[in-house]
C-alpha cells in the first residue's frame, strides 16, 4: 500500500486502539441473532456517515423484514468534501470492516454483502480483493463460516463511477441495479425495500468497523466512551489551514476548540463541519461539541485560517453542488444554480440586502422541498457563511 494513503495522526480508543479483528466475529457466532442486535442497540452506536441513525434499530428492522434474500451494503462512496477516513479504514483496517459486514449478515440473515467503492478509490480495489480472498481461505467468508453450519456469507466489491449523489443510500442502490444514481423516495426504506427490492442495510464503512468492535468488547465498554447521546469515538478527517492535517480518532463530544488545539489550528476564524453539505462554524462558537446532540458530522473538518476569503469558500461549495446535483428534482437542480449566481453577484459587489434575503429564503426552501439529503443540505454552507460573515461579504469593492 502506498504510504500516502495512510495518514493517521492520533490512535484513539476504539478503531485505532485496542480492538483486533477476529474477536467480534467469534463472540457473535456464540450468540443468537437477537442477542447480537440487542448488543449493538445497547451500545448506542449511531451511523457514522453523518445522518446518525441508530445502527441497532436499522439492523433490527432488516432482521424483522420479510424477504427472499437480504443484503448488507457497505457504503464506501466517501465523496463528502473533506472526508477521507474511510480511505484509511479500507487501507489499514479492512478486516474490521469486512468482519462488521459478516456480523451484520449473521444478525439480519443475509448471505451476500456488497461494498460500493467509489471509483476515485479504485487503487484500493486490488488490496481489498486480496483481503477477501485471504478471508475466504481462512474460513471467515464463504460457506459454514468458522465451522458454523448454515451460516454462509460472502462479500463482493462494486465500483462507483464518479457521482457524489451515490453516497445517498437509495441512489447507491439505484447505481448497483444499473441505473442513474437518482435517489428514491423514502419510505419505503431500504431495510424493507432495498437492493433488488429486498431488505437491505446500508451502513457506512466506519459504522461497520465500530459494530465489530462493539461485539468484540461489549456495549458497556463502548458506551463508556463519548457522551450519553453520542456513544463511542469518531474518526475525524482534518484538512485546511492547520499544522497537522490527517485522520484523528476522538471520543464523541469533543469541542471544536479542543480539536483545533490538537491539530494545530487555533488561529482559525471558522471551521466547516460536515463537508460541503455541513455547516460553517465561526470562531465565537468553537466551544460547541461535535456530537449528534450539538453539531452532527460524518467527520469532515475543514479549517479556515484568518486570511481566508469566505466568499471564495462559498463559491467553491456551490460550484460543487451545481456539478453534483442529479437534476431529478427542481429545488436542487435550479436552486444551486441560483445560489451560485448569487455568489457571483456578491463577488461583483452588486448584491442588495433585499436580494441577499431572497437568496436566503431560497436556500431555506431548498432545505424543506428537495427530495433527498443532497438538495436538503446543499444550501447549508451558503446560508451559514452569509449569516456569520455578512460584514465580509456585503459591500465588496466593485472590480475595475
Amino acid at each position, binding site marked *: 500500500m502506498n504510504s500516502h494513503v495512510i495518514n493517521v495522526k492520533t490512535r484513539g480508543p476504539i478503531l485505532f486502539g485496542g480492538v483486533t479483528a477476529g474477536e467480534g466475529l467469534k463472540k457473535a457466532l456464540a450468540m443468537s441473532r437477537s442477542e447480537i442486535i440487542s448488543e449493538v442497540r445497547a451500545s448506542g452506536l449511531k451511523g457514522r456517515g453523518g445522518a446518525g441513525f441508530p445502527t441497532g434499530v436499522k439492523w433490527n428492522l432488516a432482521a424483522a423484514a420479510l424477504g427472499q434474500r437480504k443484503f448488507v451494503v457497505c457504503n464506501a462512496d466517501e465523496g463528502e468534501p473533506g472526508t*477521507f477516513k474511510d480511505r484509511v479504514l479500507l487501507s489499514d483496517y479492512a478486516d474490521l470492516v469486512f468482519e462488521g459486514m459478516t456480523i451484520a449478515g449473521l444478525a439480519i440473515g443475509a448471505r451476500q454483502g456488497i461494498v460500493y467503492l467509489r471509483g476515485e478509490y479504485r487503487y484500493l480495489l486490488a488490496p481489498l480483493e486480496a483481503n477477501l480472498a485471504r478471508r475466504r481461505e481462512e474460513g471467515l467468508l464463504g460457506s459454514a463460516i468458522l465451522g458454523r453450519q448454515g451460516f454462509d456469507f460472502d462479500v463482493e466489491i*462494486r465500483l462507483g463511477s464518479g457521482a457524489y449523489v451515490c453516497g445517498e443510500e437509495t441512489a447507491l442502490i439505484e447505481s448497483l441495479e*444499473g441505473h442513474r444514481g437518482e435517489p428514491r423516495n423514502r419510505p419505503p426504506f431500504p431495510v424493507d425495500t432495498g437492493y433488488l427490492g429486498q431488505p437491505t442495510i446500508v451502513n457506512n464503512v466506519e459504522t461497520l468497523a465500530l459494530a465489530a468492535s462493539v461485539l468484540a468488547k461489549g456495549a458497556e465498554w463502548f458506551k463508556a466512551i463519548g457522551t450519553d447521546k453520542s456513544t463511542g469515538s469518531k474518526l475525524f478527517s482534518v484538512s485546511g489551514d492547520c499544522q497537522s492535517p490527517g485522520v484523528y480518532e476522538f471520543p464523541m463530544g469533543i469541542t471544536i476548540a479542543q480539536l483545533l488545539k490538537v491539530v494545530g489550528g487555533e488561529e482559525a476564524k471558522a471551521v466547516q463541519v460536515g463537508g460541503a453539505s455541513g455547516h460553517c462554524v465561526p470562531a465565537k462558537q468553537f466551544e460547541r461539541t461535535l456530537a449528534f446532540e450539538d453539531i452532527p458530522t460524518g467527520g469532515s473538518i475543514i479549517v479556515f485560517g484568518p486570511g481566508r476569503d469566505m466568499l471564495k469558500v462559498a463559491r467553491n461549495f456551490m460550484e460543487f453542488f451545481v456539478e453534483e446535483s*442529479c437534476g431529478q428534482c427542481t429545488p436542487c437542480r435550479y436552486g444551486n444554480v441560483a445560489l451560485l449566481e448569487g455568489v457571483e453577484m456578491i463577488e461583483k459587489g452588486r448584491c442588495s440586502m433585499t436580494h441577499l434575503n431572497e437568496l436566503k429564503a431560497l436556500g431555506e426552501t431548498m432545505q424543506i422541498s428537495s427530495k433527498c439529503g443532497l438538495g436538503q443540505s446543499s444550501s447549508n454552507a451558503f446560508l451559514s457563511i452569509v449569516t456569520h460573515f455578512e460584514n465580509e461579504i456585503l459591500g465588496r469593492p466593485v472590480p475595475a
Partner: protein
Amino acid sequence: MIATEQQNLTAEIAELAGRHGRDRGALMPILQALQERHHQISEFAMQEVAALLDVHPVEVYSVVTFYAFLKAGKEGKFVIRLCRTISCDMREKDKVARQMENELGISFGQTTADGMFTLEWANCLGMCDQGPAMLVNDQVFTAVTFEKVHDVLEGCRRSFSVHPAPKGGH
C-alpha cells in the same frame, strides 16, 4: 468504424456479459470495463450492450451520460483528474492547473491531438489532507508540485513510447 472492429467489439461485449451476467445489475461493471479498455463507450457499444441486457439503448445512454467517469466521446490513454474541491483549492490547485495546461497545450475538458492525455477537473478525491491531489487513470498523486506535474507526464509518455529507455540506468 470498420466491420471487423465492430465484430471484435460485439464479441468483447458478449464475453463481458458472460462474465458479469445479463441482468440490469451487470450494466455498470460492463460499462466500466469498456471505458477502461477503449477510453470511451461508443454509440455502437451502447447498442450492443443494450441488446444483450435486453434494455432500450436510451437506458444505456442515460447511464453513460450520468456518471462522470463514463464517456460517450473518446478520451486520452491517460485521463488526468485534478481535484478542484475546497481543501485542494486552498492549497493552490489553480497554479498546478495552469502548469498542467502549459505542459499539455490543452485546456481542461480537452484531449491532446495525439490522443494521449485528457485533462479534467474532479470533485473531491478524498486526499484533502495531502493536496493538491490528482488521479492519473487509477493512480493517485498527492502534494502535486510543478516538478511533479512534469515528472508524471514524462512518466506517462515514457510508458507509451515506441523505443522505451533501456533498463538499468541512463
